[in-house]
Structure formats: C-alpha cells, structure tokens
C-alpha cells in the first residue's frame, strides 16, 4: 500500500476579533458584509475575472478557508480559485458553512456594479476595502488598456504581502498578566431599547441606500459644531426616538460604533483590526431635540475614544483568550459560551453605525467611478457609510419590513435642502 505524499499546508490562528464571528454566524445574522463599487458603464465579467485573478495574488490570505479544530478555529490556505458571478443571491447571504470548504468571500457583478461580500472573520471593513480598491484598480487598468498603456495610475496601498497578513492584535497587545477576574464588564449592564418589527421573507436584509453630497451633510454637521459621524449617529438616535412610545422611552438608545484601530496603532493588515465602543442616550421627561443628543454623544466620543481606553478594553479581551483555562475548553463549548455572552451584550444595543470613511482612488479613474457603497447583515437596523469624491452613501440594513426610522432619517436631511437619491433592494 502506498499513500501519496502531499505538500504541507499553511495554516494560521484566528485573530482576537475573528474568533467571535464563526460562533455567532447563523441564518438570521450571517456576519457577512458587502462593499460595492458602481461604475458609469456595464461590467464586463471576463475583465473582472482577470482583475480578480490579479488581485488575489497580492491578497493570498483571502484564499483561506475556515476549519474547526478541537480547541479553536483556524484558517487553512487553499488552492480554490475565486470566480466572479452575476449577482443572484439576496444581500449578504450566508458564506461560512462549517460543513463545506469554500472561500470566505464572493465577487458579484450586476449591471454597472461590482460587489465584494466577505465573511467577517476574514477581514474588517477597512481590509475588505483595500481588496475592492485593488480589484477595481486592476479592472479599470485592463478595461482601458490603451489609455493606461504607457502610464499606470498609482494605487497608494503598497504594503508587503506579509504586512497584509499580520495579526495586528497580537502585535500591539499583550493582554494583562494573570487571570482576569473582571472578565464581565462591571459597568452596570443596562438594557437598551430594542427595535422590533415584522421580519422580511426568509430573513433577507432590507437595504436602503441614500446618496447625497458630502459637502452638504458636512455643512449641517458644522452648523452643530460636530463631525459628520457624530451628526449622523445623533440623527439616527433621533429618528429611532421619534418612533418610540412613552413607555419605551424609559430605556436608553445605545449605538454600537466600530473603531478602526489602524488610526491608533500602526498596521497595514488586510485582516480584522477593529474594536467597538457604545454611545448611549437616555431620554428625559421633556421633548428631546437633535442638538441635545449631539451634545451628549460628542461627550462620550471624546471620553471613550482614547488610546488608553482602547488599550484597556482589548488587553482584557486578549488575556481572556490567553487564559490557560479558556484555551483547553473544547470548541463546541467555547462556541456556546460566546453565543450566550453575545445574547447578553445584544440586550444592551439598539443599533449600530459604522463609517468606513473616504475611499481614495487614482484621479484618472474619476470619469469611470460613480460611487462606493458599504452595507452589512444586521440583527437590528444598522447604518454603514462611506464616501467617494463628493458622494456620501448612507446605507441602512434591517431585517424588518418597516421603513419608518429610515424615512425619518432621510426626511430630516431632505428637509434641510439636501438632495438625496434613494436606492433599495426591495
């Protein structure tokens, strides 16, 4: 009997933030998010495939598949070749399935739009954006070969492959020493207001995107002496508030806000490197105005968004992961505990808002690219936004049919004289 020798396979541990996603992903919340780039012209699938083949060369980590070990999940490198396909699934449909060995991302095209959908364990918004930017870059360079024959536009993301695969959590945080007794947050666990509603068929995501001028919205934020993100977060809280009844108003509205750690700690990784913070607003008896909310959450942004606070929070999570008792617990039990803990945390959150920020592309591409958009699967209404040039796209995803919060949100902006284009998948 002769068994053939096979080449050894590369594998990596999951970073601190990734560990949470395989445990909590399910049909209701797939932990998949989507980044899209809309051009002014129809997409050519062949060129897109060519661009994808080129892109994947510089992101070898994206060829990983996720597998279950006895104690932890791990990424295993694969020989699978990613293929582009015409969009045919509902938004952010499940990607990770523990019984199949498939890639953790997909690339779709539909008419004028290229979409990248990613399982969150593989990468975060910033990492995925790097991938999409590179993909669009290669697409346009191939598409306009003649024009860019002598002179290739510069893509300003040039991290080495090694740097892109960095586990930046491991690099910047050591975890505090000894066992963590204060694993559970001793801050009082507040119960937040939770939005309920009738779910869509098959629990599909309802996406409503509003596109508007960055300058115009920034102008509104300036009038209130605040930043774009805080202004829109406050407006989101205000829109939810307007839909609450008197009894519900006794509970605070809590928004979860992801923080890109690359702005605080040096990192070029295309993998997960983010943390989250919560901002909350407790209503008083009298009518609340938008400016009250803005004042209050500006304060919590200033208070919580410091390197010290972030260091403290992440080091605690890391020491939990490094705790010897935690490590020898078999994976199914770990998964179960993460799910339970997640349910508890969930009770304290009303919604989420995430700003990917400005998407930069070479100037030469300006005539071809209309806009970039980002959205995510969500258990509760969630806002994601990004901007390209002067086009700010605010995407609401929600598992519910009702659109009253979204209507109030956009209506407030349109009443300020801002021109809004709405697009939606249902």
């Amino acid at each position, binding site marked *: 009997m002769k068994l053939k*020798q096979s080449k050894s396979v590369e594998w990596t541990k999951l970073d601190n933030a990734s560990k949470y996603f395989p445990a909590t992903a399910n049909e209701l919340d797939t932990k998949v998010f989507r980044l899209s780039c809309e051009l002014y012209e129809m997409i050519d699938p062949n060129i897109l495939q060519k661009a994808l083949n080129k892109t994947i060369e510089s992101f070898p980590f994206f060829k990983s598949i996720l597998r279950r070990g006895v104690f932890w999940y791990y990424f295993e490198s694969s020989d699978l070749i990613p293929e582009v396909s015409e969009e045919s699934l509902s938004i952010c449909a499940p990607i990770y399935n523990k019984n199949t060995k498939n890639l953790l991302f997909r690339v779709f095209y*539909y008419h004028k739009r290229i979409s990248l959908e990613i399982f969150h364990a593989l990468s975060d918004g910033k990492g995925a954006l790097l991938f999409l930017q590179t993909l669009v870059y290669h697409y346009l360079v191939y598409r306009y070969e003649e024009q860019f024959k002598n002179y290739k536009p510069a893509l300003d993301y040039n991290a080495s492959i090694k740097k892109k695969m960095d586990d930046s959590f491991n690099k910047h945080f050591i975890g505090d020493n000894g066992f963590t007794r204060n694993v559970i947050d001793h801050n009082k666990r507040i119960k937040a207001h939770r939005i309920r509603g009738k779910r869509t068929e098959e629990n599909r995501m309802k996406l409503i995107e509003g596109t508007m001028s960055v300058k115009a919205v920034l102008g509104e934020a300036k009038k209130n002496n605040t930043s774009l993100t805080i202004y829109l977060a406050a407006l989101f809280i205000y829109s939810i508030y307007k839909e609450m009844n008197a009894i519900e108003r006794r509970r605070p509205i809590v928004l979860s806000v992801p923080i890109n750690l690359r702005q605080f700690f040096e990192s070029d990784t295309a993998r997960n490197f983010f943390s989250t913070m919560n901002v909350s607003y407790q209503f008083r008896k009298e009518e609340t105005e938008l400016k009250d909310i803005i004042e209050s959450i500006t304060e919590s942004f200033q208070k919580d968004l410091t390197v010290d606070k972030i260091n403290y929070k992440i080091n605690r999570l890391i020491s939990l992961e490094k705790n010897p008792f935690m490590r020898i617990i078999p994976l199914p039990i770990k998964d179960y505990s993460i799910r339970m803990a997640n349910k508890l945390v969930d009770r304290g959150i009303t919604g989420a808002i995430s700003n990917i920020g400005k998407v930069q592309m070479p100037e030469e591409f300006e005539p071809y690219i209309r806009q970039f958009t980002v959205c995510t699967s969500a258990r509760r209404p969630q806002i994601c936004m990004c901007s390209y040039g002067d086009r700010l796209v605010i995407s609401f995803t929600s598992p519910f049919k009702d659109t009253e919060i979204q209507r109030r949100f956009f*209506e407030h902006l349109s009443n300020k004289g801002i021109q809004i284009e709405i697009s939606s998948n249902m």
Partner: protein
Amino acid sequence: MKYCSHCKVYIRGDKLQCTLCENSLPDTHDEEETLFPTVPLIFQSHLALRITAFISIAALVVSFALKEIFPSNINSPLFVLLALVTMWLSLIVVIRKRHNIAKTIMWQVSLLSILSILWDWRIGWRGWSLDYVLPISYVAAMFVMYITAKIMRLSVRDYIVYLLLDGLFGIIPIVFVLFDWITVYYPSIICVAISIIFLSAILIFEGENIKIELDKRMHI
C-alpha cells in the same frame, strides 16, 4: 429618476412606489435600470424527508395498535422504535456531514457500534454485536474510507486523521478477546491484525502529514 414629493427624495431604479413612504410614484415613462436582481424565494421543504417522517409515525402507530389487538411476547413496537431511531440518526448524520465523507463514515461506524450493542442487549444478550458487527464494521470502514478517498481524489490531509482514528477503533476488539467477552474469535482477531498493519502503514508513510494535521486541529 422619479421624485417622491412626500419624502422630497429621488428614487433610483424601476420602482413604482416610494421605498420610504410607500406612496406611488409618478410615471415618468423613462427607461429605468434595475439596481438589484430579483431573488426568488427558496422553499426549504424537502418532500422526501416529509414522506419519510410521515411513514415513520405511521409505522410506529400501527405497530402499537397491532400489539394491542394481537398481544404477543415480542415487544414489536420497541423494535420499530429502535429501527426508526437508527434510521433517522444515520440519515441526519449523512445529511449534516455530507460534505466530509471521511467524517461521515466515522460517525456512521460509531453510531452503528453503539446501536448494535443496544439492540443486542434489548433482545437478550447473544453477543452478535461484539462477535461480528463491531469488528466487521471497523475493517469495512477502513477500506471504504480509503477507497472513497481515492475515488473522490481527496487530499491525504482531508481523511488521514479519520483513517487514523478508525485504525485505533479497530484495535479495540483485542479487549473482547482478552476478557473473553465473545464466543466467535476470528472476526475480532482479523480486525485487530488488519488495523495494526494499517496503522503502521499510515504512520510510516504519512507520519509527517498526521503530525501537521494534529498540530492544526489541536492547537490551544
């Protein structure tokens, strides 16, 4: 683009109603592009599974009814129940683990061992489960796993751990022989012999792969 005068927003795509307020939009007679594909609903109802479930319940009910009408010493409803449990468990395992052949075979073997011992014990211990079923299924699994892996062109690392595990299972019947739990010896002896030869082969030829595979799966 259509304009909703209630929400004061433009609506992109081929919509007839405003996305936000659901009021109908003015017909502009423009050729509007579709922005998202229409995804048909999937009905996750497997007719075959439903029929099997129905037959199972019917069989159980009929067996109970027959026992009431024609009393006998044999506890036939219990047999039917055990058979149904066996069938459903194997079915669930195959459906859930269908993407991992080696794992499926391992699960089936473990399930078969436990269920056959239960059966044997319920119908008055005759020892056929230990005599025949266990050793034969371990050896069979070893060959089936190796052959399917070759046919399906699985890479060695995808099934090597399961093969190793099954090889270790195959040594268990040595206990039956040593403690004299069995009446028929040759299946157990053959099983143990084959398992040891098999194990030494994979350890000698695939030791490195096994080590890598175990490192990955067991990292703490």
